[in-house]
């Protein structure tokens, strides 16, 4: 017999399909994710993610590849803070071209 749940019990398991989040159920009974409390980590254990068989697992290479380049505080590659100096860095295709802004 399942022991009674303490008052204000909230399910501690991770659920979700795309991303992990808390389960808001107040009882595991009838839960399709953890199957009445049989599955400890329903988010990890899903088998309906098509070809993504180890969806929640990232080997060390993922962290090694990105650790050094992942600098959320640094200006990103898409920084739009152009200055006049950026535009002044022009190649010279020949004196007769790229001089007149109204020519066409």
């Amino acid at each position, binding site marked *: 017999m399942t022991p009674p749940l303490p008052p204000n019990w909230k399910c501690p398991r991770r*659920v*979700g*399909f*795309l*991303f*992990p*989040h808390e389960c808001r159920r107040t009882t595991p009974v009838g839960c399709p994710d953890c199957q009445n409390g049989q599955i400890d980590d329903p988010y990890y254990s899903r088998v309906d*993610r*098509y*070809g*993504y068989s180890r*969806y*929640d697992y*990232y080997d060390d290479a*993922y*962290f090694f*590849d*990105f*650790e050094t*380049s*992942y600098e*959320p505080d640094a200006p*990103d*590659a*898409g920084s739009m803070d152009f200055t006049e100096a950026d535009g002044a860095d022009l190649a010279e295709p020949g004196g007769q071209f790229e001089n007149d802004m109204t020519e066409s």
Partner: protein
Amino acid sequence: MAVDVNRLRRECVYQASTPLEAVAGDLAQIETLAAAWRAARKRLFLAGAIEMALGAIGLAIYAPVGLMLIALGACFFVRTRSRPRAVANGAARCALAKSVAAMLAHDAEPNSPTAIRLAFKPKRELLSEDPLPHRKNGKQRLYKASWFSIETSLSDGTTFTETIDDLIRQRSFTNPRGKSKVKTRTHTLLGMRFAYPQKVYGDATPLAARMRQEIRLPSTGSVRGLEVTARIVKVKALVTQSSDLAPAGSMLALGVYRMLNLSRELQAHKRAQPKAGGPQ
């Protein structure tokens, strides 16, 4: 929110702004309606055809009765108009919309406001028209038909948007026997947009290239574009087989989120690093 059946009859469109869990109920209702209309259309057509045939025979025997039967047959045919064929045959589109709603239901609040539009007979927009060389009277037309869109908020703060457009190539020509022929081929463009919160996922831009590699699709699908900025991920895929649309949509979203989830973990890793010069 109940389905606007009149609009469904008139315009073959289901459009609602309603909690996500209500969307699932609406789509189930539409599926049931579609099945009922399909059955009713079959019955009405059969009845109409029988009446018409009897009427034709009746004309030869006693004209007034024959005319009456023909008129009755015509009535049956007219009654099918209140059960539009586009909806009656639209079970596949209903199923697709249901699968999208079901996917989102795992990660959205049940009462997340959701805007959804499902068109069973969308307007075709002509994109181009060119002659078809090597064919008599040959013409090639390219159309776009937008038939599905959904937008909702997920429980991580992301605003999710999905659109589905058909790209239709129609080739018409006269064959060597003088018959007019029209050949149509349809591919489907699946578009998704994830406006994700930076405070949860950080900036996912450095993961763009890896995200492209991670996305998997059925063999009939291919990624046509991926754009990652500090706030938005946009991805588009072309699917050539309509039966693969539902899995393609889920796989596309999973591919994007696999990298977003990694971005969140990297953020956490970064925060956990001891700062240089700090206490050891």
